């Protein structure tokens, strides 16, 4: 395919007097990981919301597979393949893991009990919830709910995964496993992943393209090591 | 794990089925067996009467008097040994002020309780709802309330050979006093009522009579049952420059209406004539909002005659604190007249009892003489116009009778099904 999978051009958004995003550009290719970092209030969540369709920018455009999806509502973007994982794990707590995944599978257009179950089982294996298929999701430990939600994104055939702080509340080991999982998804399934994170170590372990936001503006892009050399980034983010 | 125990699922589900069958089947059984056994029928045993009365809902305030009247008469009849040597037994059903429930309960009384005849229902709407059931079961219904007359063929509760009306219709309740009110308080009438058949039909008849007498209808309005705010209506009354406000708003709505009329300051500049507010709703309205207003019915607690004194004594003794009204008294009359009819006919069979009630005269009614007309089952009753006393403190000093008529012959019904007398 020619051109980036997700192409963000000159997005701006303000809330009242606060400029939450100013002229943000971002380009995401299939099979790549993009990390967005920045201090609190940098506009990371706003950017995520504009990518997922939960928020409509004041100006600028979002292109997905060459189509302008700027004004598409969240559900339409999701069914086209741009799916978001929320900061707090969002899943269906009263249902079992497999029932959760089946809802995702149905979203991918798979119908019929057998096919649906098979696919849900497959996804459960990928996110290592195969042992807990019939456990009520609400009773899963926190770290595993994060994976369940990633499983949901997988189940509905996401092509672009928007991961909002995917390792929040995870143990060190779980965080490392998550990085491995993301790599695996990108590698095996040619997915594009956009990660918003606080945890610099995790971002470092993703070894991805990094975009640094500050006060709604992109102040640096490049690999993690490039960005860490950037003076402005060091100033605003790393506090030096 | 399931697969480890091949015998498990089937056996388990069998046990489950058996257990559940027991539980589910057991539940409805007491309900089934509780009924059916009790059946009156004709012949021996007590005479069973189904009484449909509003014990809950907005018309609860009338329900007490409604039921008490019939119960008092039943006690008196039973004290004398019942009729044809059979005691009376009441099966009371709550109409919940809901015509749908009336249909349901009337069916229950007919099909399950096997009552010999029915008494009650409060509004015309309730009577109309009960009518198809009593017709299907071929039982009589004794209806006690003031009502709209028998001109609307399309309602099943009108000109129904199985229904007897013991209350007054507009020609009895209103006509005798129209001229008096016209001359004394002015020609400009505003007709306001609750939105259902009785007020609408009453007002239609009143309009016709007013035109005859040279009065003028300056406005007509209906408020749905359950209205709490009458601001718009009161404004219309004010703008119409009304002399007499002819009110057929009923129940708790009328309480709100009269209170708001007082607070609007309009009450002093017109005369209120209510045909729906008897003793119990006037108690709710209170002295301030009712003082000086008129009401007309076939009975008032205030009536000073020996039979009413005796009735009041008996009523106060049996149901102390109950506010009695014309509907309750007409229930009382209905019971006594039914007893007379049964004795006369020698049977509680519907056809015979019907013949017994037709042309029956009851001299001992608390309000005077009651005659049941055969051709349309309407009662000829006395009629009274009363004025609410200033600063009344209770039902005893609430109304003051200003006009009275000993017996009004109901105006002719225009129903095509007449006459009701069967060959």
């Amino acid at each position, binding site marked *: 395919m020619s051109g980036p999978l997700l192409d963000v051009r000159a997005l701006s958004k303000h809330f009242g007097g606060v400029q939450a995003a100013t002229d943000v550009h971002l380009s995401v290719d299939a099979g790549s990981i993009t990390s967005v970092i920045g201090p609190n209030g940098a506009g990371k969540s706003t950017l995520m919301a504009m990518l*997922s369709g939960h928020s409509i920018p004041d100006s600028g455009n979002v292109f997905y597979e060459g189509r302008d999806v700027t004004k598409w509502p969240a*559900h339409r*973007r*999701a069914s*086209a393949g741009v*799916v*978001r994982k*929320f900061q707090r794990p*969002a*899943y*269906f707590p*009263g*249902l*079992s893991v497999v*029932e959760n995944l089946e*809802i995702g599978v149905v*979203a991918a257009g798979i119908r019929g009990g057998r096919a649906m179950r098979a696919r849900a089982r497959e996804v459960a294996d990928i996110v*290592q919830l195969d*042992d*807990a*298929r*019939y456990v009520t999701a609400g*009773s899963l*430990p926190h770290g595993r709910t994060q994976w369940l939600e990633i499983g949901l*994104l997988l189940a*509905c055939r996401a092509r672009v995964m928007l991961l909002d702080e995917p390792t929040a509340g995870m143990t060190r080991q779980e965080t490392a496993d998550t990085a491995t999982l993301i790599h695996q998804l990108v590698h095996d399934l040619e997915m594009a992943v956009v990660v918003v994170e606080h945890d610099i170590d995790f971002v470092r372990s993703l070894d991805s393209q990094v975009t640094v936001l500050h006060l709604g503006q992109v102040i640096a892009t490049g690999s993690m090591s490039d960005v860490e050399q950037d003076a402005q980034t060091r100033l605003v983010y790393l506090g030096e | 794990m*399931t697969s480890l125990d091949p015998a498990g*699922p089937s056996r*388990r*589900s069998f046990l*489950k*089925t058996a257990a*559940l*069958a027991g539980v*589910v089947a057991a*539940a*409805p059984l007491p*309900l*089934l067996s509780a*009924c059916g056994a009790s059946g009156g029928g004709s012949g021996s045993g007590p005479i069973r009467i189904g009484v449909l009365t509003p*014990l*809950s809902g907005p018309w609860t305030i009338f329900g007490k008097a409604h039921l008490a009247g019939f119960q008092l008469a039943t006690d008196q009849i039973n004290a004398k040994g019942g009729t044809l040597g059979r005691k009376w037994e009441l099966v009371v059903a709550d109409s919940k002020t809901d*015509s*749908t429930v009336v*249909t*349901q309960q009337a*069916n*229950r009384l*007919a*099909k*399950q309780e096997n009552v010999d005849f029915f008494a009650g229902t409060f509004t015309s*709407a309730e009577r*109309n709802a009960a009518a*198809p059931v009593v017709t299907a079961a071929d039982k009589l219904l004794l209806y006690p309330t003031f009502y709209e007359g028998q001109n609307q063929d399309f309602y*099943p509760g009108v000109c129904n050979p199985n229904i007897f009306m013991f209350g007054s219709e507009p020609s009895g309740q209103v006509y005798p006093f129209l001229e008096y009110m016209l001359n004394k308080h002015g020609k400009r009438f505003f007709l306001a009522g609750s*939105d*259902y*058949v009785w007020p609408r039909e009453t007002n239609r008849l009143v309009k016709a009579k007013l035109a005859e007498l040279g009065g003028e209808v300056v406005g007509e309005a209906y408020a*749905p*049952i359950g209205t709490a705010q009458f601001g718009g209506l009161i404004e219309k009354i004010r703008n119409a420059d009304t002399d007499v406000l002819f009110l057929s708003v009923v129940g708790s709505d009328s309480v709100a209406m009269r209170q708001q009329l007082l607070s609007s300051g309009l009450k002093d500049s017109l005369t209120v004539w209510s045909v729906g507010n008897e003793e119990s709703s006037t108690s709710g309205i209170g002295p301030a909002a009712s003082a000086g207003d008129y009401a007309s019915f076939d009975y008032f607690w205030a009536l000073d005659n020996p039979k009413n004194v005796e009735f009041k004594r008996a009523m106060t003794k049996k149901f102390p604190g109950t506010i009695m009204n014309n509907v309750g008294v007409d229930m009382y009359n209905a019971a006594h007249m039914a007893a007379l009819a049964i004795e006369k006919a020698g049977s509680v069979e519907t056809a015979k009892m019907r013949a017994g009630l037709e042309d029956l005269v009851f001299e001992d009614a608390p309000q005077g003489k009651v005659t049941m007309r055969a051709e349309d089952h309407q009662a000829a009753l006395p009629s009274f116009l009363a004025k609410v006393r200033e600063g009344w403190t209770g039902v005893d000093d609430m109304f003051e009778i200003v006009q009275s008529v000993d017996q009004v012959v109901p105006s002719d019904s225009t129903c095509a099904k007449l006459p009701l007398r069967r060959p």
Partner: protein
Amino acid sequence: MSFKVEVSHETASRKVVRARRPRRGNTEDLLATVLFAVLFAVPSVGDSYQVFILPQYMLFGVLAMSLCLVWGLGGILSFGQGAFFLIGAYALGILSTRVSGSLGVWLGIAVGIALSAAVAGALAYFLFRARVRGSYFVLVTLAISTIGGVIATSASDLTGGFNGMFISRVQLTVSGWGVDLASDSTSYYFVLALTIGVYVMLRWLSRSAFGRVLVGIRENEERAEALGYDVALRKTLAFSLSAAIAAMAGAIYGTEAGFVSPSLADVVFSTSIVLWVAIGGRDFFLGGLVGALAISLVSEKLNSAIPEYWQLLLGVLFLAVVIGFRRGIVGSAILAIDRVGDRR
């Protein structure tokens, strides 16, 4: 089956019990079969009043199941089901008297269903699109029942207003073949078949993809939307379908009872539907059905005997169920039976 070690201790014990694939629904269907069998047997053992009244209560049960669909499955609490029931009843009443023959009857049923579905759909889409939900939508459904009652009362030319409307027992026939509801026993079995049909249809629906997604929306609306589901559209469909079922039940109820009045739309009736479903168990269609049947039956017995105390008792029972048995009496029973079954 193997369990991974990383499972934390406090949830481990629960897991063992629940980790097996549940045979979801078996117990409910089994119980329902028993109930339907009992109902099937009633005309041969009961009296004529039971044959007359039970179809009406079964239709209340259908109405309750329509609420289970939106509330239990979709998480949309509605105090407006009574209004749709009423639309069905009035439509049949009006059209069957004004259009002669079986055409009028079918037209009445069809118009009632279509009108309810359309009103519910339009209103729901209008509001769900704007993300009106939760308590606010409950308020709107309260408004639906209030406005429904007001219209039924005031449009007296059409509905008979407060006086109500009389509907005779109709014949449901297609080119001479069909059922004549005039006979109590015929209409009993007809309504029973209808009730079973609705139950089966709703059970199928709850297992279908649509049903699963609806549950997903109930559990987490944001997540469902972010998975690509048009949440507003699906909730609207559910609400509209539920209104259609309520209207169908209402139409048959109208002809069964022979009389309808605006009281069916008022807040009291609509809230008693919520009561039936809450006490029976909102998560199970059988809960709604049994709740409606049982409470109607017992109410009828106790209402005349101890009207105030019975209402009080019902209130206390309702409070107890909401506090203690979120899944209702039937729902809790089903789950308890499942648990016993699973433990073996």
